[in-house]
């Protein structure tokens, strides 16, 4: 069973104004997730009928068209703030006068995230959405589901009012972009950076290509993900890379070995945790806090490292294939440095050998999720934290003690506890909730 399914339960048809919308008015159901976690995102309370139903009566054409028009950004762009981002990622933005689900679609590159919020009251409609969900869907399932819906809509239109030329041309253009590797890469990078294909400013693609030669084909995607947050855009990104290349401080990541791949598909955070367990085995210390001495020894440096200055672009740069990685540590606080260096280790394991830049960013890409999860599990193994909090409790003091014990920050402890459902989300600092 696919992890996401747009199901036309029944074609309804109507006589409103636009023949394409009229012909494709349908009882439509959207399910996502797997196994016990599967959620019907179109579960609604109908206050006129006074009943709950798992479908909504909407224009399948409007939905299919919106999914196709925003395909690249839905498929590749990580979450960002702002109404402009939401217009390309929130189903509620489809408009046309329908009460669409308040569900947001984003991507880390490997998986599509769907976040839906239940409504406490009807919002200028007779229906109220009931589903709360945060789901990860394999990207391939998402692609197939959108293709399937678009195909169904086109068949319906062919049967009713004739094939829709706009939709067909859109499908053909998208198919060409997806199947041509160079075109697909260009569209992907623009989407990650928040542009619809073809909308990037003149010269942007050439500059990205130049940058790619310097940082590597995987790393360029990480840069694209943070470009919107860099005031100076591409120029600032290039300067950031140059600064890393010139950094006078190095760490040794050459001893890291990639473990065998997982036999099962894994989410980026699952991969990060698994890699951390492996590295702990490499270090010969599968449990307990990692001291500065142990961490420093394996990285070939003394901790704490000199703090240079806060920089917009953070990470490491490796150029010789021997694992020596130039770094600029952007934190003064020891526990922040440890987490940053641990993230670099995770990044080194995630990145391909062709990538010189190991980016450490706030973006919601698969690599960054893997890095964060890796660092958390490496420095603060869950089994140990679980036992610590079983013994000492979950109060603020106990959490602070755990941070001191594992030499990580308070929010690393809280995030780990929340992610494992041992602490309610409300106990996170406001900014992280």
């Amino acid at each position, binding site marked *: 069973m696919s992890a996401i399914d747009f199901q036309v339960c029944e074609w*309804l048809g*109507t006589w*409103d*104004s*636009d023949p394409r919308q009229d012909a494709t*008015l349908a*009882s439509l159901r959207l399910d996502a997730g797997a196994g016990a976690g599967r959620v019907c995102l179109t579960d*609604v309370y109908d206050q*006129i009928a006074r009943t709950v139903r798992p479908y*909504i*009566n*909407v*224009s399948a054409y409007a939905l299919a*068209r919106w999914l*196709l*028009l925003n395909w690249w950004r839905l498929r590749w762009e990580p979450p960002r703030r702002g*109404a*402009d981002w*939401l*217009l390309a990622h*929130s189903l*509620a*933005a489809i*408009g*046309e*006068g*329908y*009460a*669409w689900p*308040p569900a947001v679609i984003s991507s880390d590159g490997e998986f599509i995230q769907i976040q839906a*919020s239940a*409504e406490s009251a*009807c*919002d*200028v*409609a*007779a*229906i109220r959405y009931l589903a709360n969900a945060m789901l990860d869907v394999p990207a391939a399932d998402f692609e197939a589901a959108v293709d399937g819906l678009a195909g169904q809509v086109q068949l319906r239109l062919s049967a009713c009012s004739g094939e829709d030329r*706009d939709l067909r*041309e*859109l499908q*053909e*253009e*998208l198919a060409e*972009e997806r199947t041509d590797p160079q*075109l697909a890469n*260009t*569209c992907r990078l623009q989407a990650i950076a928040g542009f*619809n*294909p*073809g*909308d990037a400013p003149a010269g942007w693609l050439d500059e990205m290509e130049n940058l790619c030669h310097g940082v590597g084909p995987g790393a360029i995607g990480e840069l694209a993900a943070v470009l919107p947050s860099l005031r100076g855009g591409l120029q600032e990104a290039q300067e950031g890379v140059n600064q890393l290349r010139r950094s006078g401080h190095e760490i040794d990541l050459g001893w890291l070995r990639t473990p065998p791949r997982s036999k099962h598909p894994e989410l980026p955070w699952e991969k990060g945790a698994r890699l951390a367990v492996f590295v702990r085995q490499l270090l010969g210390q599968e449990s307990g806090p990692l001291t500065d001495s142990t961490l420093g020894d394996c990285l070939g440096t003394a901790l704490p490292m000199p703090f240079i200055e806060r920089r917009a672009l953070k990470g490491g740069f490796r150029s010789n294939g021997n694992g020596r990685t130039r770094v600029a540590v952007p934190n003064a606080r020891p526990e922040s440095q440890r987490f940053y260096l641990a993230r670099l280790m995770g990044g080194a394991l995630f990145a391909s050998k062709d990538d010189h830049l190991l980016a450490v960013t706030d973006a919601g890409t698969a690599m960054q999720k893997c890095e964060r999860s890796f660092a958390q599990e490496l420095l603060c193994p869950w089994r140990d934290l679980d036992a610590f909090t079983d013994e000492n409790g979950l109060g603020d003091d106990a959490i602070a003690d755990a941070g001191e014990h594992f030499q990580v920050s308070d929010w690393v402890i809280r995030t780990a506890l929340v992610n494992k459902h041992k602490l309610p989300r409300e106990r996170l600092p406001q900014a992280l909730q």
Partner: protein
Amino acid sequence: MGKKAQQLRHETIRTIRTAPLTDAQRKHLEGATYEGSPFHKRNPGDFGLTPPAAPRPDKTLCDEAGIFKKVVATRLFKRGTKRALVSEFMTPAGFPKEFWVVDSEGNVFEAMYGGSREGAYHGYPIRRSDPLFDKVSSAWKKKP
């Protein structure tokens, strides 16, 4: 790349126009008329509209936004044509495809071009979960 998608996005994705309408365009817009749609009314009879056959589409409802009478809807429509917070995309007839109006309760309404004659629009409230809601609310406050 993306040419067809760009063209369709320009025509369909709702974007608030930044450049003011010309005097001629404003005058043209003020000649627009409001036609209700029964799909956006829980009780379409109040507007003199024929109720749609079941099952009804899940559209937003003017009743749920406190608009029960056609005269009130028409007044709101006229306020919208005067304030002229309109879409980038213009129809071949020279009317904006959409324009927006915010009532005194903060409800945001969208007027969509299309009806039984040229210059006719139908309207409906837009939901708070619609990202355009905040954009319109903010633009409405700034619009002279």
